């Protein structure tokens, strides 16, 4: 099964870059995995997803719970998917709906979102806060195991 991991976020805005950190870590640990940093997301993710069987999106999320909390959501369902509104014009659910509408048959049938609860997305820094950093490690590990990669890695 052809899988793509997409990291969304701004690497300079501390925890906002969590998804991008996950992708960068994966690229280093398992270069055989297709992983891309799609930065601010938006409509271009449709292009990136084209032709894959499965996509795993990793993004930071701010719901007000404990920083570092990890959410795993199956977003392939369409209407049942939670209505996250992104800070960036075209939100994720809209984008995916658009993909199903305009490119039927080309969108990955399996779509997952991994959200990492952020603590600080305001200050400029290329490193995450400690709890989010720990969550990044966990998510990297989870993805490697999920994709049947090695499970003896040293993060």
């Amino acid at each position, binding site marked *: 099964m052809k899988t793509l991991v997409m990291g969304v976020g*701004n690497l*300079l805005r501390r925890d906002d870059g969590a998804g991008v950190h996950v992708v960068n870590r994966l690229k280093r640990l398992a270069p055989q995995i297709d992983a891309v940093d799609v*930065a*601010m997301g938006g409509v271009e993710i449709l292009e990136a997803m084209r032709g894959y069987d499965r996509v795993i999106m990793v*993004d930071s*999320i*701010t719901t007000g719970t404990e920083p570092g909390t990890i959410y795993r959501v199956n977003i392939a369902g369409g209407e049942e998917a939670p209505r996250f509104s992104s800070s960036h014009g075209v939100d994720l659910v809209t984008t995916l709906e658009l993909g199903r509408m*305009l490119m039927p048959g080309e969108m990955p049938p399996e779509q997952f979102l991994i959200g990492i609860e*952020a603590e600080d997305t305001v200050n400029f820094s290329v490193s995450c806060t400690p709890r989010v950093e720990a969550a990044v490690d966990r998510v990297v590990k989870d993805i490697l195991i999920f994709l049947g990669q090695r499970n003896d890695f040293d993060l």
Partner: protein
Amino acid sequence: MKTVTIDPITRLEGHGKIEIFLNEEGNVENAYLQIPELRGFERFCEGRRAEDMPIITPRICGVCPVAHHLAAAKTLDAAYGVEPTETARKLRELMNCGYFIYDHTLHFYFLGAPDFVVGPDAPPMDRNIFGVLKKVGLDVGREVIRHRAYGQRITEIFGGKATHPTCGVPGGMSKGLNEEERQSIEDMAGSCVEFAKQSLGIFDDVVLSNQDYVDLILSDPYQLNTYNMGLVDEDNRVNFYGGEIRVTDQRGREHDKFREQEYLDHVCEHVEPWTYSKFTYLKDVGWRGFTDGPRSGIFRVGPLGRLNAAEGMATPQADDEYRRMYETLGGRPVNSTLAFHWARLVELLYAAERAMELATDPGITGTDLRNPVGEPGEGVGVVEAARGTLIHHYNLDREGLVERVNLIVATTNNYADICMSVRDAAKGLIKGNKVDQGLLNMVEMAFRAYDPCFGCSTHSLPGQAPLQVNVYDAGGRLVETVQRG
């Protein structure tokens, strides 16, 4: 006094908040747009290597990465006292055209068109891209996705990644074009020219053929008589990459024209206590508060500002559209804020035509990519971003490390205008405490026309409703909350 807060603003690039202050009669007293500050970015850059600036600044915000990249590269050219080679200059301009293609396409169809194509009075849940597609058809939707991707691919051919380009270096470019890449850009640009014409056709069919919409565009609350600013070539035609900065007045006459290095002599920044962001104004005219007219130094940038500040477009079909726009709307300058959308489409056609010209320029595959740099010092670089004039200014120390950074982004240049447009729209549309969602959307329309980006935008996924309106009484107590979504 009552306060109406619209937060967050739907369909915008980034976060923002509009606060509308009502008086005792329930009429609009004032309106302010609050932008989160670009906190600490300048400090983040200090001490870094100069050549990192074109890599770092595109990450300020994912909306204008290419414009920041090119402004940074131009600033380094100036700071190192080097002119880029002829080929490098053309490559950079071509890259900027690719970025304008994808950015203007996205804005028109996803952010602007829902108001016009679907209609300002349509229910909020239909006023989005799906409503647009219902009206124009799925085939147009596929064309939108395809051509937005073409614009992005053009920038990727140079920059590696469209969102994080790495090709601009002081004195030129790190990578040239081979024949295969050139051919591919020519094909994509050709297709984008047709797509831009099709988009102008849609604007004609849906907006201009509807007298209500034309009246809306020309209606009083959406007029602002400010100065206009943009980069122009030697014939005073719009240019996205270089030339001189031209300022025209409320009657379309040239008020000022200066080289990018001289911006500090012509543009000042004003500070208000209620926001961290600054307001730019023309130094020789001065700051007179939030007011328009010849005595107020406030100016507009972005698609409409650029077209008003110029005398035409440098490509034939876009120039025809330029003239048609001014003929239809009563001559230059056009001061209707909602005409930004039309101006954006004229620019989309120009970007595609100009990309085509550059892609077929015999010198574009040249290998003279970079000139040797001089000693590090101070530099200013200006390019047109999709949203308007973007200024970078760095001081480098003798080791080539960054000592001081000042960035004036397009949204800062339009900040005072946006606040005034919101206030005027609110004045015309909210009266006697009557605040319904249709009216609020008209206020947002004024704001959205500028396509403002908030430099510090992040991409965390918030879980709240897309629109919330809070009404406060004179004592600051929350008396009403209206939610949209």
